[in-house]
């Protein structure tokens, strides 16, 4: 680790590595192994080092949620204690991700504020296009997830003679609300 690097330095040149999500968490052999092997020692420690100091906040959050799901799935009689601990860790990790995102967005906005003249004009004009692109991407992602969730629900409920229509039809709006929430956080920070 570079001991001369300040937290500020880390945030000036962020290269966020988005974690690759497993196609099917339930079928992921690694997760299955965690479920089978779970003993409550290392997986449920709240020490960040054991979660992985090299992980990005998003990766750490992913690990924490995987551990939490594994703890719930565990057949150990003490599953509840482990589930409560892992839930707490997952919540903490999520908060770290939210703070990290707000911090990165704040720094990005400050960098944009330093643009002048033609640069600033380009930035402002193209932001409109960028927002449009992002909205399209966000819609696509939300719709894909909605479809998957609906597929899962149909599968789960199929034997019950019940039809749930688009339970997450608000997916796109939810996405926008989350973005709005982030934006508000950013404004509050500044």
């Amino acid at each position: 680790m570079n001991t001369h690097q300040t937290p500020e330095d880390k945030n000036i040149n962020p290269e966020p590595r988005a974690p690759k999500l497993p196609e099917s968490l339930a079928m992921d052999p690694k997760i299955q192994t965690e479920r089978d092997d779970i003993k409550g020692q290392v997986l449920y420690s709240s020490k960040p080092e054991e979660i992985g100091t090299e992980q990005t906040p998003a990766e750490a959050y992913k690990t924490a949620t995987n551990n939490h799901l594994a703890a719930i799935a565990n057949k150990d009689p003490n599953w509840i204690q482990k589930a409560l601990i892992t839930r707490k860790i997952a919540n903490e990790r999520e908060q770290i991700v939210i703070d990290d995102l707000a911090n990165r967005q704040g720094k990005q906005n400050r960098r944009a504020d330093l643009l002048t003249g033609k640069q600033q004009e380009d930035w402002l004009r193209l932001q409109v296009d960028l927002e449009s692109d992002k909205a399209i991407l966000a819609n696509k992602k939300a719709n894909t997830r909605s479809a998957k969730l609906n597929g899962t629900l149909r599968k789960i409920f199929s034997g019950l003679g019940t039809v749930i229509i688009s339970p997450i039809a608000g997916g796109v709006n939810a996405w926008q609300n989350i973005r709005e929430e982030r934006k508000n956080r950013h404004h509050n920070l500044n």
Partner: protein
Amino acid sequence: MDKIQFLKEEIEMALNVFPALDKAKKEELMAQTGKLTEENLLELLTVLYRMRRDFIEAEYETIKANDEYIKSLNTKHE
């Protein structure tokens, strides 16, 4: 606590992450979870967590794209 009850509470919390999800739909969904097995409830919870992680991943992608754009503007006008 009963594991099925625990899972239902987890699902209810996970659904609250999606504020635009219609309240009636949430209630309908929660009412029907009463008929589900432990395995099915876990599967549902897993999907909800994955959706949340997707949202987070997309936020990072957006920031990265914007950073690259600002860099390209600086390069373009240097």
